[in-house]
């Protein structure tokens, strides 16, 4: 009987307009540590969601110990031996370590309907020993550091060991992104001695760590598994080339329309810093320029974007707009100084789903569309119509509910909002996330239109390729520090590989 613990066979999954997974197959044998790498948008997160029972595959099957299993919920996946350790923690801080480990599975410790805390803590202690976490099982998780919480989640996975028949596979999603090197060493030593108990799938951007810990590595790109490489023979460079595949042609990113930056500095940052997120970030942003920021989770670029948009306050450094120093106490200050944020979560911070297209577009400049206290609806409709036409927004009318539009069109409404508000600096936080491939090109076209109109753009690209393609200058960040700066003029774009070296 093959000792494959977990198999994914010809799994495909499509969403409207995008094929997230295209005939993916891979195997995890007992006691093996498998690496799974790939750029953002390569399909890794969709695959994990299928293994975790959040999504169901359109085709193909998932097998545990050779038997096909139907995974309809995270709990079903867990009970079948597939344990997920999330990027953004699923440990509940209001409960203790032991309670988190056995959440939803407390029957085992019931005596006359009451939880026998002593037995549960003892059982939890057994699991904690396996991960060398010398923390009392009764400690409330609110007091644990990120790394300690991660260990609790791994312990939770290991608690399946003696409790279910099938073997256990633990999926670690970006486990080391916010760990100190000492904590990474600890995690690796634990993974090594877990081999006897469970097999591991290690998903990470940190290629040298993947090489250091994994037995075999699958590389994914554009929803397909493009390579399966034994770790012994692999090098970081080889992995990079697999990950990158052909460089998308210049036309895709409208490179020819990349205008040289103007000479007037709109926004300057000097030694910007925020405890626990990033420090000593400096740059100048000129009109018509696209400043790309490359970095993986934990690099601090998301927190930087929030500070620049006024959503969070920096601890150190200064920001100047047109030479005037500014302090952004809130989003309203940023907008007043001409800085707008196109957020990663459109539906939460981007727009109001119940508002019409016109109402969303004028939200940031409502004052201009009212005279003597009453909204000038005609003027508002006209302005909205102008931008719907200019940005090719596919909507039945400017009165249509924004919630009903596709992701791409909603993004265009957000962009129109800031253009109407007359901002000079636009911060694009993963602007093409959750947008189908066709609409992505529209967004790239818009970025070019924006810079052509003299605005400056700060881009947190979804993929490295996108950052390179769109940006005129690229800041590379890792662990909260700017590790390199590259010029990326049209026709002189830097190699992805050279940026990756400073990024991961």
């Amino acid at each position, binding site marked *: 009987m093959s000792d494959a613990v977990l198999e994914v066979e010809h799994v495909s999954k499509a969403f409207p307009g995008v094929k997230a997974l295209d005939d993916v197959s891979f195997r995890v044998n007992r006691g093996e540590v498998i690496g799974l790498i790939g750029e953002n948008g390569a399909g890794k997160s969709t695959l994990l969601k299928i293994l975790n029972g959040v999504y169901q595959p359109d085709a193909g099957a998932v097998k545990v110990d050779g038997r096909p299993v139907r995974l309809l919920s995270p709990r079903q996946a867990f009970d079948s031996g597939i344990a997920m350790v999330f990027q953004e923690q699923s440990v509940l801080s209001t409960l203790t370590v032991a309670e988190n480990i056995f959440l939803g599975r407390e029957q085992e410790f019931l005596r006359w309907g009451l939880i026998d805390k002593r037995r549960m803590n003892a059982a939890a202690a057994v699991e904690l020993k396996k991960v060398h976490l010398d923390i009392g099982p009764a400690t409330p998780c609110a007091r644990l550091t990120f790394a300690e919480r991660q260990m609790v989640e791994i312990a939770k996975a290991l608690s399946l060991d003696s409790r279910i028949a099938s073997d256990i596979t633990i999926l670690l999603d970006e486990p080391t992104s916010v760990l100190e090197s000492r904590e990474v060493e600890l995690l690796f030593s634990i993974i090594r001695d877990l081999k006897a108990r469970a097999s591991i799938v290690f998903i990470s951007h940190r290629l040298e760590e993947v090489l250091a810990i994994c037995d075999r590595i699958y590389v994914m790109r554009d929803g397909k598994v493009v390579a399966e490489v034994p770790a012994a023979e692999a090098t970081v460079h080889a992995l990079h080339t697999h990950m990158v595949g052909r460089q998308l042609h210049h036309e895709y990113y409208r490179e020819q329309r990349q205008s040289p930056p103007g000479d007037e500095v709109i926004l300057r940052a000097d030694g910007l810093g925020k405890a626990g997120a990033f420090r000593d970030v400096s740059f100048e942003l000129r009109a018509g320029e696209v400043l790309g920021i490359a970095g993986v989770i934990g690099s601090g670029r998301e927190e930087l974007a929030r500070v620049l*948009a006024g*959503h969070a306050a920096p601890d150190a450094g200064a920001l100047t707009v047109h030479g005037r120093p500014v302090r952004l106490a*809130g*989003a*309203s200050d*940023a*907008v*007043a100084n001409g800085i*707008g*944020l196109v*957020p990663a979560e459109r*539906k*939460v*911070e*981007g*727009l*109001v*789903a*119940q*508002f019409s297209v016109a*109402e969303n577009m004028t*939200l*940031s400049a*409502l*004052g201009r*569309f*009212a005279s003597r*206290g*009453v*909204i000038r609806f005609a003027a508002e409709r006209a302005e909205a119509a102008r931008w719907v036409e200019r940005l090719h927004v596919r909507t039945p009318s400017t*009165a249509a*509910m924004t919630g009903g539009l596709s992701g791409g069109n909603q993004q265009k409404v957000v962009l129109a*909002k800031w253009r109407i*508000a007359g901002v000079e600096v636009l911060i694009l936080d993963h602007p093409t996330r959750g947008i189908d491939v066709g609409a992505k090109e529209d967004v790239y076209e818009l970025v070019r239109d924006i810079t052509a109109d003299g605005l400056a753009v700060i881009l947190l690209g979804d993929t490295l390729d996108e950052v390179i393609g769109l940006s005129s200058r690229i800041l590379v960040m890792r662990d909260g520090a700017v590790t390199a700066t590259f010029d990326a003029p049209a026709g002189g774009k830097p190699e992805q590989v050279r940026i990756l070296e400073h990024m991961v």
Partner: protein
Amino acid sequence: MARIDLQAWLPILVLAALVAVVSLYDPGFFTIANLLEITANTMTLFLMAAGLTFVIMIGSIDLSVQSVASMASCILAVFLPTLGLAAIPLALLGGVVAGALGALISTRLRIPTFIATLAISGVVLSAGFWISNAQSIAITAEARDAWLGWVTGAFLGVPNEIWVGLVALAGLSALLQLTPFGRLIRGVGAQEQAVIASGVRVERVKLWAFVISGFMAALAGVTMAGRLGSGSPTLANEFLLPAVAAVVVGGTAITGGVGSIWRTFVGALIIQVVRIGMTFMGVSVFVQQIIFGILLIAAVAATMDRSKILVVK
């Protein structure tokens, strides 16, 4: 504009059904005189609920409206003899201050509005007792006719209270539908983070919502004092929960975002027709509260717009 679906017309259908049921039982109910009478009696409840609509539409709640109305009636009764007409704006100012206090405590100290306004209602109640020296103060007939005619009189055969209610309905609806403030109220209720991220000073929107709620509660108090010819620190007792019910039964979601003033106007009439209807139909006094409770839950279930709410707490 948004397509008119059953959801939007439901409150009016419910009201019509209730009026039909009561009229079937007693035709005397369905006369112009009586319908005017009932509408006039509903206006004080509507005025308070109309102000409350703004607060509920941003997903908050104002538990101080009852005490504010009573305090306003005391201010009116105490100062009418000396200040004359100026007593009315003074009473309304009292409501504005109470509303602003509730908003500031909630936004500055970041305390949920349920608790902030519960505390403010205690403070306002004390103020009412202090101003009225803990007793009800009569408003002389002359003072009533001189300055409160707009409440007690009639015009074109219609009691003035209805005109006051209609003016409030028109004014507040215009404020909600036509002004930037009204749009922001809907925005904050539907998706507050997006409105904040768009650069809007949301604290200011909330402050104005509570100021309007305080103002309207005080106006309700002044109208009540005009009708009853006196002010008292407990004049508006038992008004808070019916006012909240009127807003929600009208179809404004308790979780915010969806709603309008005319819905509250219909909601207030529904509450009144249910309560008065039961008297008309001779429903035993003992059963009225049971029916009122059941109808409240049924009306909320019927008028709720569930498409928006993922987790109902």
